[in-house]
Every structure is written in structure tokens, then in C-alpha cells.
């Protein structure tokens, strides 16, 4: 277990200096006392101060939240629309050259770790062709306490590569799920009925078939949210994106435990909220589901 005192007091501190630091942060008390103090502070929303920057850990993370949120939101939207869209395309016309190409690239996609996708994007779009910026957030605009990159051209350009990188992994999974679901549903009796009623293809596909496919797709997308958070750490590191994930990694290097613990709590909160959201979405997608 890394001793935070070592990084706090510096490598060249004397034993006495180390002890002084240990005392001033309350790290000399027994484990159960430290834990009790942490708990009683945490329930009041106080997660302690960062060992490194000496500022409120929660504040430090929340400052970085907009950057991560904007990137993750764009990535989810890209992955869901492209994943479901391509999944439908592939399942309706499975034997065309286009579909085969899409399926083959999805296998390569699944076998490609996120960090490698990011580096390949940087090599192709930033180093060799120089069309897109390789790192950072570009120019941002501050609205209240929310720093957004959506409002400037440079901010939007900087978003493209990180968003594509983060979307790539989910995209392949969603595509494969949609394809498998569509193939199963298109053979069902109620789809045959819909066709024989003379409904238009788009109505049969989107209104009758897709709606039944979406439930497992939404479940997996919700379950994978933890993966999304993890891969946002990777993506932010590659593109030097000033978000929460980047902060977490730096805190791991520096043994800044209050920040790590606060990040864990925040990630847990976000995951629970997403799970509740997924449960609510079930009811919209399938009116047969009723919560007592």
C-alpha cells in the first residue's frame, strides 16, 4: 500500500518532517478512527482535501466534470445511433458487400483496445494528414461554472477524435446486439402480420421490430456504463483531455488517496443513477412492464 506521507513530504524529507506531515493530516491515528472520521465527513458531502493541491477533493473533481460529460455524452450518442443504425442495415441486407465489410470491421474493432484506437486516430488524422488536433480541448467558453467546448469551432474540432475513440468500442457491441436481435424478431409472427397488413417497410422495421430489439440493447448499454467510465480514463489520457479520468490517473501516480476515494464514490453514484434510468426506460420501451 502506497504511503501518502512519502509523496506529501517529498522524497528528501527527514524522518521528523515526515512525522509532522503524518500528524497534520491525521494519518497517525488508528485505522478505525480515520475511517470513522472519513465516514462522518463523507455523509455530509465532505470528502476531504487533496493531499497534493490542498483543495477540496470533490470540488477538484467536479471542476473537471463538464469536460468528461461533454465527451462521454457525444460518444454515447454516436455509438447508439451508429451502432443501432448499422445493426439494422446489416440485419436487413446481410449478404451485400457493405454488410460484410461492416461485420468484418466490427470484429477487428472488438479486438482493438481503446488506447490503440486512439493512437491510430492520432497517427492518421493528426500526424500524417494534419486535419484534426491531436490533444487538448481547444478554446472553451465559460457559462456560469460550466466550461463548454461546444460553442467554438476549435472546441468542436478537438472533440471529434476523443469522441470517436470512446464511441468505437460500444459501437461494435451495440451493432452486434442489434443485428442478433433484429434477425430473431424479423422471423416472428407479429412481423409477418405487420407485413401482411401492408405497412410500409420503415413502419415495420422501426415501429414493430426495433422496439422489441431495444430492450436488451438498452440493458447492455446501461450495464456497460462502468466500462464507458473506465475507457473515458484511457481516452482522456491519450488525448490529454482535461477531465475527471485524467485527474484520477494523475492522482494514482501521486498516491492522492482523497481524490481517488472521491472519484470512486462519484463513479458509484453515476452508475446507480444510470441503472435507475435504464429501469425507467424499460417501462417506456415495453408498456407491459409495470413497477409496483
Amino acid at each position, binding site marked *: 500500500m502506497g504511503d501518502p506521507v512519502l509523496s506529501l513530504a517529498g522524497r528528501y524529507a527527514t524522518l521528523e518532517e515526515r512525522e509532522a506531515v503524518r500528524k497534520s493530516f491525521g494519518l497517525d491515528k488508528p485505522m478505525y478512527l480515520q475511517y470513522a472520521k472519513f465516514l462522518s465527513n463523507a455523509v455530509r458531502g465532505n470528502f476531504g482535501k487533496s493531499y497534493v493541491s490542498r483543495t477540496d477533493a470533490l470540488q477538484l473533481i467536479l471542476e473537471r466534470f463538464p469536460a468528461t460529460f461533454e465527451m462521454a455524452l457525444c460518444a454515447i450518442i454516436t455509438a447508439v445511433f451508429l451502432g443501432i443504425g448499422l445493426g439494422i442495415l446489416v440485419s436487413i441486407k446481410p449478404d451485400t458487400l457493405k454488410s460484410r465489410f461492416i461485420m468484418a470491421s466490427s470484429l*477487428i474493432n472488438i479486438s482493438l*483496445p*481503446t488506447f*490503440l484506437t486512439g493512437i491510430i486516430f492520432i*497517427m492518421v488524422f493528426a500526424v500524417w494528414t494534419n486535419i484534426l488536433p491531436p490533444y487538448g480541448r481547444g478554446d472553451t467558453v465559460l457559462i456560469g461554472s460550466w466550461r463548454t467546448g461546444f460553442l467554438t469551432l476549435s472546441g468542436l474540432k478537438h472533440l471529434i477524435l476523443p469522441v470517436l475513440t470512446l464511441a468505437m468500442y460500444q459501437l461494435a457491441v451495440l451493432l452486434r446486439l442489434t443485428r442478433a436481435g433484429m434477425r430473431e424478431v424479423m422471423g416472428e409472427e407479429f412481423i409477418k402480420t405487420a407485413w401482411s397488413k401492408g405497412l410500409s417497410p420503415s413502419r415495420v422495421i422501426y415501429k414493430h421490430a426495433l422496439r422489441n430489439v431495444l430492450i436488451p440493447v438498452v440493458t447492455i448499454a446501461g450495464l456497460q456504463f*462502468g466500462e464507458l467510465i473506465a475507457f473515458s480514463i484511457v481516452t482522456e489520457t491519450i488525448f490529454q483531455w482535461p477531465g475527471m479520468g485524467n485527474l484520477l490517473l494523475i492522482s494514482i*501516480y501521486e498516491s492522492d488517496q482523497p481524490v*481517488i476515494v472521491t472519484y470512486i464514490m462519484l463513479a*458509484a453514484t453515476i452508475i446507480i443513477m444510470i441503472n435507475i434510468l435504464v429501469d425507467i426506460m424499460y417501462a417506456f420501451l415495453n408498456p407491459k412492464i409495470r413497477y409496483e
Partner: protein
Amino acid sequence: MNNRFIKSKLLNNFLHDPSAIIGSALLVLLLSAALFAPLIAPQDPYDLETLSFDNFLLPPIWMDGGKAPFILGTDDQGRGIFSTILFGCRTSLLVGFSVVTLAGSFGVFMGLLAGYYGGKIDAVMMRLADILFSFSTTLLAFLLIGIFREGGLVVIIFAICIANWVKYARTMRGSVLEIKEESYIMAAHASGASDFRIIFKYLLPNAIAPIFVVIAVDLAVVIMLEATLSFLGVGVSLTEPSLGMMISIGKNYIYAGMWWMVVFPGAALILLVIAINLFADWLRDALNPKIT
């Protein structure tokens, strides 16, 4: 169903599936390359005596400035890329196989207990599984390493195991629940066989098949995860060879046009994962009829 029958069916299946043959041929090739790395590699990249500053940042041998034993060029410390890849594959496979063995046997054991006894053991284990599952393997491994702080081979293997055993436990539990109702299990009960005997002699061998599919899929996931962790600098220690770390060193040089430090280790990693995924796809198709 007797052993010989499964074997012949599996074999027959295998011989009619070109992608399975390509996948496993590739896998055997990479496995033996990793196993015999000290014999094949033209240089031992982790023996300081063979490193020389004359040799750093050399391009591959077919380019201007390439030098004799360094087929794929060298990195910033004069380590041959080809040799380092061989040793790096060793680490990847070592971590991969250790995790699937350790997490696999623990998970299978827990799954057997939960499935067989049900009740409180089952309830506690499945809630624990839900928690671990919604955090996702990658995020959990990150956070555990953040808490342990120290990297290194053993820490990574354990962190991934803790994050990972749930997959096996869930699969095994599901499989046991199905088989528990079979008449031969009831017959074993009636004949007065002990719990121990029923679990290990009757349940384990009959319920284990789906685990092999999980192992195959998981192996690829774990190898990608180790590469990701090492890439981010929270994985294996600096003195241990790793594909992820090679790519992270190479990333600093892509702007200078030295692509070989990223492209070759990246290609090795992708090949390794694709080979395992092709094999896993075949195994899933081949074993599935027996599962359902």
C-alpha cells in the same frame, strides 16, 4: 454423453471452420514464439549489457539507417523492437493465463456453492456479483490498482482476478441450476452420496462446458486490459517487458515520424487478440448445442 463423442464432434467441427483453423494456427505460432522467446530473440532487451547508445531509435532494417540484428528497429534505449515484442507477448500470455486460471477456479468454486446450496450463500454472492458487475472489470481493476498503488505483475494479476471472478461464478451458477434438476443428481441424492461427492463428481464435470467459452473470451479481454494498464503506467513495472508499455513509449515519438515503435507492438497485440477471438467464436458455436 461420453468423452470420445464430444471430442470427435468438436474435432469435426473444427476441421470445417476455416476461421477457427486460422485463429488457432496463429495462436500456436504466437504461443511458441512467446515460449521460446529467449531462443528466438536476437537480443535480450532486458539485459543491460546488450544495450548500447549507438543503437537507440534505429528504424527497421529495410529503411535507411537500419542495422543488422534489429529487424524491426529499436526504441529510445536501444532495445530491439522484435525481441521486446517476443518478451512482451510472454508477459501478456502469462497475465492472461494466470488470471483465467485463478479467477476461473475461484469463480467456478463459488458458482458451484451458490448454485448447489442456494439460499443465503446464493443471495449474498449474487448481490456481490451485481455490485462488481455494474462497476465493470476495467474500472474495478483501475480503482484497485489506485488503492494498492504499487504496480507490478503480481498486483495486476490479483487486481484483475478480484474484478473478474464474477463472470465465472455467474456462468457456473446458471449452469448448475439447470443441471441440479436432472434425474441423475436426484439419484445421487437418493443413493446417499455426500454433498462433496455430488458437487465435484457429478455437478462439476457436467456443468463445466460453458466455462470454457468464458475462458476463451476472457483471455482476450484480460490481455487487452493488461496492455491498457501498462500503457497508462499503472501496470507492470518498468523492468518488465509489456506490449502496452512499448506502445506508451512509442507514442512519444510518433510526432517525430518514428512509427515503428507503435505500429509493430500494436500489430502484435491485435494479432494475439484476434487469434483468441476467432478461436473463442468457434468454441462458442461448437459447444453451444450441448449447453442448451
